[in-house]
């Protein structure tokens, strides 16, 4: 009996320790953003929203945030068709050299971001495409595409192959079968993947750092540039805005497809 109780206490200590460690950075940033002082501290020095007012008024931050949204949108727009088709193909058909293709598609995971960043910088630079926003979106798509493929594959592998045969049997030509049966069945995976891609591209720092110049800095790069001069609480405030974006995406995901599908996929 007492052994059981001891076990419970130890378990709870572990759980609480884990939760505190995981949430501490978020809580610190959240707290620090509401400080009324002029330096970033935790616990905050008084309470005010002045740093939020400051970032709302700062045109460079606003511009950077908008650019980040554009980059994230471009990334998502490219990733959805590419990742959906690749994911369906990989999970449903006996594609030749399927294993090789899978490894290749997962490769961006295994290469350090700084490596792929330099590679992309060289390629895009040689093509004379740097200095624009869309190559940054494309680059974010390239390095994060495995997430999209993974989300779609998780959905598509649960798809009963007989569903497509049934559609054919009922008179649907292949394209109609794809539109009416296959696509709806993998929609949860597409939504999950699209939101992931959007958030990842919005937050993407390292590769963006290499691909942007002073005219088109994205928000994470802008923050990084600010840190190099002085650390003021407005950085905490902008971080909170970031966190809010991610939270909104998770909320949207839960509303649209339910978090359970996201959590139980492999």
């Amino acid at each position: 009996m007492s052994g059981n109780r001891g076990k419970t206490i130890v378990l709870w200590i572990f759980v609480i320790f884990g939760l505190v460690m995981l949430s501490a950075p978020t809580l610190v940033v959240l707290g620090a953003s509401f400080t009324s002082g002029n330096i970033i501290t935790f616990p905050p020095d008084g309470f005010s929203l002045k740093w939020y007012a400051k970032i709302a008024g700062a045109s460079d931050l606003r511009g950077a945030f908008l650019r980040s949204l554009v980059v994230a949108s471009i990334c998502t727009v490219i990733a959805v068709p590419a990742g959906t088709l690749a994911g369906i193909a990989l999970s449903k058909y006996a594609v030749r050299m399927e294993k090789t293709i899978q490894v290749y598609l997962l490769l961006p995971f295994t290469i350090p971001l700084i490596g792929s960043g330099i590679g992309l910088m060289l390629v895009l630079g040689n093509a004379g495409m740097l200095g624009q926003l869309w190559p940054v979106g494309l680059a974010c798509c390239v390095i994060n595409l495995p997430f999209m493929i993974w989300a779609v594959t998780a959905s598509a592998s649960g798809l009963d192959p007989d569903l497509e045969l049934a559609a054919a049997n009922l008179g649907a030509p292949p394209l109609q079968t794809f539109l009416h049966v296959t696509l709806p069945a993998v929609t949860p995976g597409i939504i999950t993947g699209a939101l992931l891609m959007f958030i990842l591209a919005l937050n993407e720092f390292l590769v963006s750092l290499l691909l942007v110049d002073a005219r088109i800095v994205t928000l994470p790069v802008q923050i990084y540039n600010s840190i190099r001069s002085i650390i003021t609480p407005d950085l905490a405030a902008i971080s909170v805005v970031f966190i809010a974006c991610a939270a909104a995406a998770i909320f949207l995901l839960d509303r649209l497809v339910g978090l359970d599908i996201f959590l139980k996929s492999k």
Partner: protein
Amino acid sequence: MPDAANAATARDGRGEAPIAVSVRHVNMVYNGQHAVKDASFDLPKGNFLTILGPSGSGKTTLLRMIAGFGAPTSGNIVINGRAVGAVPPHRRSIGMVFQKLALFPHMTAAENVAFPLKMRRRDARTIPDKVERYLNLVRLGGLGDRRIHQLSGGQQQRVAIARALVFEPDLLLLDEPLAALDRKLREEMQLEFRRIQRELGVTTINVTHDQREALVVSDEIIVMDKGEIQQKAQPTETYRQPNNPFVANFIGVTNFLQGKALSFEAEGEVRFLHGDVVLRGRAGSAAASLGNGREVRGALRAEQIRIAAEEAALTGLDTVVSGEVEDAIFEGERVVYEISVPALDGAILRVFDHDVVGHTQFEAGRRVFLGWTVKDVLVFAG
């Protein structure tokens, strides 16, 4: 129901029931293995055919080839006079009920049923009426707005049937759709299939491993094993005149008595030696191959063996032996005995007993008498 003679004339193209499906020398080879081997049969219009066989017998492969999912390695499939070899599944007029039903989960019951009509570009104004008519046919009137997961297993079955029939296909295929249901619901749905099939007169091919279902629903049964058709006959004939030991064993509970053929008597009677005992039976098919001295097997159905406590109660039967009850299993409507018979080299015979009057049940260890007639034993080469 067209009888055998009728079907034979239909085959010549002169009878009143034309051939709906003709399968000619169809082979399917996977990795050098014959999944289906030289399958040939004709199915008259309006008939209900069941392909019965254990798993791996090739029955589902054959059905899927008829649906157009996978082309035969060789041979022809002709539906309504048209060879369908090069016709993709969506251009064949075939309704199919899948084993796992394959209903579209993101659509309602009515949308599922409307799907084939939309895909076939039927007049949009007539679709709702038609959908409702077929939902009523399967007794789902008023449930069209339900999502698939809001329906019970039996109701989902009915949606699948309505969806497969609503476009008035030339042929209905059933790929073991009842396998997953519990027994009561399964038996209810078997009768439902039978009712709907008779009502619409649609030619149907049903695939199952359930011998009872095959006997209950079919006009004709094809028994398959190891990719080959073993027998094609009406249910009563399949049961009473099995072509070979496989069919005899697969349908019903059958005791086999091994022996050597001794002599052939009048009216197809065969005498054979089992151990030291001479047994009598009637020749099964291919009696010509049962030469004297050949190994033969006598097949004896469990329900054909009469059981009694006294030898005198079995007078009038051709063969009477004594045995000892090894096990008695009460199954409700009958008692299943396992009885060892010293005179037959200690062979264990399975016996069904329906003692409707006395409700007698013999205990294990009890000495009993078993009896049967010559025509109860069907003798095969073997």
